[in-house]
C-alpha cells in the first residue's frame, strides 16, 4: 500500500476510534482529577493567567523521569522552569514500570499519587490508563505552547489509543545503524532484501535486538510486518478497534507467514541481542557492522563517546516505525496547576528544540523550525532529514505487535 494512503488511513482510524468513544473521552464532562482550579473553565486563552498564580501558590511539583540518560537534560530544563515561574520541581529518576505499579497501588489504597507529572514509558500507557491512574486531561489540545501536535503521536502510544491524555514529549525513531569503517557510505543495506543479502555475506555482523527485549527490535519486527505482509492484511495494522483475540488470530494466520519466513531465513546469519544497549555494545566492540537501533540512542552514545562517530543511522526504504515516550499527569496528582504549567513548558518551542539538539529526539510539534536548531554536528548524528520525511511511519497497533512477538518467540527463537 502506498505510504501516504496508509498514513491517511491511519489518521482516519485514530480519529474514528477517538470519536467512537471506545476509550474514556478526553475532556469529558467530569475530569477524574481533583484540583483547586476550575479545569472546565481552563482554555488556551486564560491558561497562564489561571495557572501561574495557582502554581506559585502550590509552591512545588514532584516530577518522575523514567529515562536512563536524560538526567542532565532535565536538570537544565528544571533550572530554566524554576527561574521562569518560581515553582520548585522535585525531580526523581525512577524505574518506569515500578513507578506505574506504585501509582496503581496508591490508587487502590485511595491514597494521593506520589507524583504530579510523570514522563513514562510508552509501553506502560495502556496498563496505566486501564488502571485509571492517568488524568483525563486533553493535553493534545489544552496546552497553548503546543498547538501543532501531529495527531498520531498526540493520541497514540505504542499502538494504543489514549486519545490525548499523554503529551508526546519525546519522539524517537527506529533505524538501521551501520559502521562506515566497514561499509562504504551509500553501499549500506537499504531494504529488507539487501539486509538479508548482507547478513548472508557477513555472518554475525548484523545485530538484531530481540523484539521481546528492546524497542529497536520490536520496531524492526513491526517494520518487517509493514514491509512484508500481504497488502490485503495491512488495513488491520492501524485498526485501533482490534481486540487482543482478533490480533492473535491475525498474527496466527497467513498475514504473518512472509515475515516469519524472512526471519527464519536470516536467523542463522545474525546475532540476536538482549536489548538496545546490548546491540550498540556489539557495534562499539566492532563485532556488528549493521544493527537495529533507536536513532536517539545512537545520537546519545556517539555524543558520550560510547560509539565511534563513524556509526551512521538510516531508515529502510520500505519505511521504519517511530515512537516516543510521553508525559502525563496522574489522576491522584496533588499539584495540578504546577504540573500543567510544567507540561506546557516541556512541550514549548524552547524545550522541544533544546531537546532535539542535546538528545537527538524528534518532536511531535509540526510547526517547529527544526532547521534552525540543527547544527552540522547534530545533523551528522541523526538519520538524514529526507529519509526521515519519506520513510518514518507510526507504530502499528500494539495488540498486533504483542501477538506477532509471541509468534516470533515460538517460531523463530524457540524454533518449533
Amino acid at each position, binding site marked *: 500500500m502506498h505510504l501516504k494512503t496508509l498514513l491517511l488511513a491511519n489518521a482516519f482510524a485514530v480519529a474514528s476510534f477517538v470519536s467512537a468513544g471506545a476509550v474514556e473521552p478526553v475532556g469529558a464532562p467530569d475530569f477524574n482529577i481533583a484540583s483547586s482550579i476550575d479545569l472546565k473553565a481552563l482554555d488556551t486563552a486564560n491558561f497562564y493567567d489561571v495557572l501561574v498564580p495557582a502554581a506559585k501558590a502550590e509552591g512545588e511539583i514532584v516530577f518522575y523521569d523514567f529515562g536512563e540518560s536524560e538526567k542532565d537534560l532535565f536538570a537544565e530544563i528544571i533550572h530554566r522552569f524554576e527561574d521562569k515561574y518560581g515553582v520548585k520541581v522535585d525531580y526523581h529518576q525512577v524505574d518506569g*514500570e*515500578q513507578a*506505574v*505499579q506504585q501509582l*496503581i*497501588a496508591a490508587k*487502590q489504597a485511595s491514597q494521593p499519587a506520589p507524583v504530579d507529572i510523570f514522563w513514562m514509558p510508552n*509501553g*506502560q500507557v495502556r*496498563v496505566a490508563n486501564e*488502571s485509571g491512574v492517568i488524568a483525563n486531561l486533553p493535553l493534545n489540545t489544552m496546552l497553548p505552547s503546543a498547538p501543532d501536535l501531529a495527531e498520531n503521536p498526540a493520541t497514540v502510544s505504542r499502538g494504543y489509543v489514549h486519545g490525548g491524555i499523554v503529551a508526546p514529549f519525546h519522539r524517537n525513531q527506529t533505524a538501521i545503524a551501520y559502521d562506515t569503517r566497514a561499509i562504504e557510505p551509500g553501499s549500506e543495506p537499504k531494504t529488507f532484501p539487501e539486509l538479508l543479502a548482507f547478513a548472508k555475506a557477513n555472518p*554475525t555482523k548484523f545485530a538484531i535486538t*530481540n523484539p521481546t*527485549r528492546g524497542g529497536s527490535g520490536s520496531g524492526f519486527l513491526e517494520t518487517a510486518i509493514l514491509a512484508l505482509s500481504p497488502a490485503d492484511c495491512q488495513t488491520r495494522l492501524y485498526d485501533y478497534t482490534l481486540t487482543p483475540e482478533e490480533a492473535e488470530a491475525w498474527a496466527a494466520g497467513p498475514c504473518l507467514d512472509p515475515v516469519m519466513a524472512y526471519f527464519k531465513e536470516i536467523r542463522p546469519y545474525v*546475532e*540476536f*541481542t*538482549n536489548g538496545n544497549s*546490548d546491540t550498540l*555494545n*556489539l557495534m562499539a*566492540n*566492532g*563485532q556488528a557492522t549493521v544493527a537495529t537501533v533507536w536513532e536517539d540512542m545512537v545520537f546519545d552514545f556517539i555524543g558520550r563517546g560510547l560509539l565511534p562517530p563513524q556509526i551512521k543511522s538510516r531508515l529502510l526504504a520500505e519505511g521504519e516505525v517511530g515512537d516516543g515516550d510521553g508525559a502525563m499527569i496522574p489522576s491522584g496528582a496533588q499539584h495540578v496547576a504546577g504540573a500543567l504549567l510544567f507540561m506546557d513548558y516541556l512541550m514549548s518551542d524552547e524545550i522541544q528544540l533544546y531537546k532535539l539538539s542535546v538528545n537527538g529526539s524528534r518532536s511531535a510539534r509540526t510547526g517547529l523550525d527544526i532547521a534552525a536548531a540543527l547544527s552540522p554536528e547534530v545533523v551528522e548524528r541523526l538519520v538524514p532529514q529526507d529519509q526521515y520525511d519519506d520513510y518514518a511511519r507510526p507504530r502499528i497497533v500494539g495488540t498486533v505487535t504483542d501477538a506477532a512477538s509471541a509468534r516470533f*518467540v*515460538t517460531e523463530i*527463537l*524457540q524454533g*518449533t
Partner: protein
Amino acid sequence: MLLMLLAPGAGYLLLFFGLPLALAFLSSLGIGTIGADSAFTFRHYVELFTSSVYRDGIAFSVYISLAPTIVSLAIAIPLAVALQASFPGKRLFAVLYKIPLVVPAIVAAFVVMILFDRGGMLSRMLLPFGLQLPKLVRDDFAIGVIIAMAWKAVPFMALIIAGALATVPGDLKAAARTLGAGRLATFLRVELPLALPGITAAALLVFVSSTGAFAVPSLLGPIYPRPLSIWMYEEAMHENNWGLASAMGIVLSAVACVILVAYYRLTTSVHRSAGGEAR
C-alpha cells in the same frame, strides 16, 4: 513461656515470609490480585504449564541453578582443602578470594560481559595470536551465566566447606594415615564424608539462591529460553499480570522446597548409614 520465647522469631517468619508467600499463593489463584478483579481460578497455573515457552523457562531456571552449583562445588572443595594448609601468603589469599562475596551479581555480570563477550577484552588479547574465544555470552548453553554465577558462589561455598572440614578431628586424619591411607584416601574416606553436611548445605544454599537469579541471565543469558524470573518480572511490570507472575513465583519457590526436602532426606540417610541418629 516457651511460646512467648518463640514469638519474636516465629512472628518475624510469619509476618515477613509466611504472609507474603500466602498472599502470592492467593494471588496466583486469582484472589486479591493487584490490578484485577478477585475471582478464584486455576488459569494462571494452566497457562504456566501448558505454554511451551514457560515450561522451557522452568527447565532453564533449574539448569542455571544446577550448573553453577556443580561448577562452584568442583572449585570450592579443592579451594577449601587448600585453605586448611599453611602456605606463604595465605592471609592475603584468604582475603582476596572472598572479594566476589561483596561484589553485586550485576557487577559480576558486567565483568563477564566485558571480558568474554564478542570483541571483549579477552578476545582482543587473543586476537594477535590468531585465537578466538567460543561464544560465551548469549550462548545456547548459558556459559557466561554459569561463569558469573559460579564466580559469585565459589567463595561462599568455600567458606562453608572450609568450616566443615575444619571440624574434622585431626586425630581421625592421623589415625587414617597411620593405618596406611594416603592423603587422597584420607580425604575421600574420612574428611569428605564427615564434612558432607556442610558441603550439601553450601550446595543447597547456592542452588536455592540461584533459582531466582535475574540480573545475570538477563545480561548474559541466551536469547531463548529465558528463566522464569525474567518472565515473572515482565508479566508483573510490563503486563500488569500479577496473577501469572505470582504463579511463577510459587512454582520457583516449590522447586526450591523440593530441593530442600531432598536435601534433608539425603543428609538423614547419609547420617543413618554412617551410624548416627536420624535428624
